[in-house]
């Protein structure tokens, strides 16, 4: 296989990590919303926790994106 083509395919494969990040972020916000609709008075107190969970879920996916960028430009 052409090494350049293999490089691009590898970068694309590394981006698969973002699937997990998408599922995780969707889960967090979906669960927050359903919890917030059940008990709206408790929702604002958990907003910081929501953002922390969002940040942690996103970070794992971004590691994959970072690998892709390293493959492409590194």
């Amino acid at each position, binding site marked *: 296989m052409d090494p350049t083509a293999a490089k691009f395919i590898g970068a694309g494969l590394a981006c698969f990590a973002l699937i997990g990040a998408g599922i995780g972020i969707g889960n967090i916000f979906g669960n927050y919303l359903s919890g917030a609709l059940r008990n709206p008075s408790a929702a604002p107190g958990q907003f910081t926790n929501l*953002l922390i969970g969002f940040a942690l879920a996103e970070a794992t996916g971004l590691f994959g994106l970072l690998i892709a960028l390293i493959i*492409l430009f590194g």
Partner: protein
Amino acid sequence: MATGAAEGAHGPMHQFEINRLAEFEIFGIDASFTNSSLFMVIGVALIVGFLALATNGRSLVPTRLQSVAELAYEFIANMVRENVGTAGMKYFPFVFTLFSFILAMNMLGMIPYSFTVTSHIIVTFALAALVFVVVTAIGFARHGLGYLKLFVPEGVPFWLMPLIVPIELISYLIRPISLSVRLFANMMAGHTMLKVFAGFVVSLGIFGFAPLLFTIAFTGLEFVVAFLQAFIFTVLTCIYLNDAVNMHH
């Protein structure tokens, strides 16, 4: 980057290019004043200028400008109090500086044809490494060698220790990487995506209005992300500070 055109002056990656504005060399180290440094100076000047102007009057009933500065102060002060407790207010200046610097850098980057300092991993990694070193130093200064107990959670059976301690250690050491990569990747990916979709406006001809609308909506989202990432960086700094200051696991 398959085509040569994408590498040109209007490619999506062009906006991240660093240009030397004035060349300096200190003991053989390239310390040139670049466009990145220029935007950092502009950002710091904006923050200092705004806060100096806003707190100039110091009236009991705040003026409009002063109440903006008070809002910013209260926002971060509450964050520190909630996450670290009153013992953490000692470190409030550090946290406030981090927040205002990152926010200013992210927001300056949203101006068309400007430069986003935080879209370079070396900048965000320097910030995250600073947080890591400061937090570790505070932890050891407050608890001495007892700070190492952070890696030994209570209530874990001893035969699990060989597994748990390395995991705790790795999750501690990976903090500067995850902190810096999150900020850098968010800013870089967002700005690249805006540029890529802006490129579609011309190439799609009459249907170019669709990517144009998307770009407008996405610019709004990018402003939210710019604020959110500054906020998340600060909240995580507070949580790490909490580990070092209070140490209950």
